[in-house]
């Protein structure tokens, strides 16, 4: 357990808690994830160590699929970062997920599949969760469209957001793609717009929140949360 650098803080039972970069537990109430997922078929997109996949299973999901990619070279690295970034966090995520899955006695199924290739061959899902992924994608629009395409109920997307002085209610994005592993930094309304553009007929906004400062790393900070209904 200690051998790995964990991405998620996971409570594996019997007092074992992984020391993740992100601890979502104190913020659970902010995420627009139904407390009761009984009987539902769920998908976790970009699962990493599996926190949300295991959480959806815990909330009663009939079946949970988790997709991710393992080859760090397949990530949308900005060119300047591709060489110099330490990729252990990505290389070992499959091992960490499996370790956690065994410890939890979980039956979540993890599949290697980039969100860009997410398709209906995996079936349709009553609920889809995608957290902290869009910011790392060159093409988040295709990702959201693919999520919409496999969704037959609703989908919740959570991502870092920025607030613009120029217009809080506008769909804006600042663009990096150079210095940080981040492409489009969306405003809350841009996140909503992206859901609408992908064809969700109704989009619900959660209250933006700060991931608790207990988390390590530079990726804590303001999160926007939206739930789209087909």
């Amino acid at each position, binding site marked *: 357990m200690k051998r790995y650098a964990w991405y998620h803080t996971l409570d594996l039972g019997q007092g074992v808690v992984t020391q993740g970069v992100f601890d979502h537990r104190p913020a659970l109430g902010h995420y627009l994830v139904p407390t009761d997922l009984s009987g539902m078929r769920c998908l976790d997109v970009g699962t990493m160590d599996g926190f949300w996949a295991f959480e959806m299973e815990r909330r009663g999901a009939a079946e949970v699929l988790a997709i991710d990619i393992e080859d760090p070279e397949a990530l949308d690295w900005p060119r300047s970062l591709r060489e110099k970034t330490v990729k252990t966090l990505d290389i070992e995520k499959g091992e960490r997920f499996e370790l956690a899955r065994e410890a939890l006695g979980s039956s979540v199924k993890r599949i290697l599949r980039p969100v860009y290739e997410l398709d209906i061959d995996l079936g349709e899902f009553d609920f889809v969760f995608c957290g902290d992924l869009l910011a790392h994608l*060159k093409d988040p629009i295709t990702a959201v469209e693919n999520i919409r395409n496999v969704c037959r109920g609703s989908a919740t997307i959570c991502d870092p957001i920025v607030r613009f002085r120029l217009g809080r209610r506008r769909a804006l994005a600042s663009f990096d793609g150079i210095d940080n592993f981040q492409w489009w930094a969306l405003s809350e309304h841009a996140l909503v717009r992206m859901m*609408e553009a992908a064809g969700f007929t109704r989009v619900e906004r959660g209250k933006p929140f700060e991931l608790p400062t207990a988390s390590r790393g530079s990726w804590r900070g303001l999160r926007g949360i939206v739930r789209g209904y087909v």
Partner: protein
Amino acid sequence: MSDVLSTLASRNDAARRIREHGFWYHTIDVAPGLTTPGWFDSRHVVDLLPWPEVAGKRCLDIGTYDGFFAFELERRGAREVVAIDIEDHSLWDWPAEARPSVVGERDLSALGPPKGAGFRLLADLLGSKVEWRPLSIYQLDEGTLGTFDVVVCGSLLLHLRDPVGALDAARSVCKGWLLSSEQVELGLSLAGRQRPVFRLDGSGETCQWWLPNTLGHERLLWSAGFSVEARSRLYVERFNAHPPPDRSLPWRLRQAVVASLTRDRHPGVLHRAVLARPRI
């Protein structure tokens, strides 16, 4: 001017063919007094762009539509010009609400005959040797078309879901210069000079996605592996057959700012062009 138009009869025939073509995007002079009634008029823009050396070069025009920039490259003495576009209007990066499966094929007929038809008609009338290929920017690669000394891409990136991926593909065939002319947001350009910012649209029949401020346009190019070497001033892609603006008060205020920035009082779309070269 080609021999095709050397007689009055052939000239009348050309005028008829231009008239009968359902939709013109570009305003292009075919002969004195004979011009396509395009939605946009870019003729004055030619002198404002930061052109690289074109004479004797192998050139590519991406998203050529009726061929305005392709024919201009040829006129400037390019050794060879290839023009690409997607033929089928249903293959644009439509947002969900405007997809052909939602709005129906008939609505796309407002965009005219398949792209390439207007181009071929003009190529015939102008006696042009530009080669037209049905290809999307996303599909560009060295194996298909080879490489180019000069690549031109005008008013296209805003219509793409994935402009970074598209520019990556463009860079893969660009061995010299990229001339990139794009729509820019007025307010975001003035207020956000220090920050690359985009407005996300993703709705409706104009099929627009990421609309940059001037710095956003440059940053996009940089992250796709280009460095920006020269910039044009702001200019207007003028409306011609394009439906006129509503002339509401906000529009008139905005228009006054655009006119003072561009020294151009014509209604149209604010643009800026940059000349870039692959940096990797």
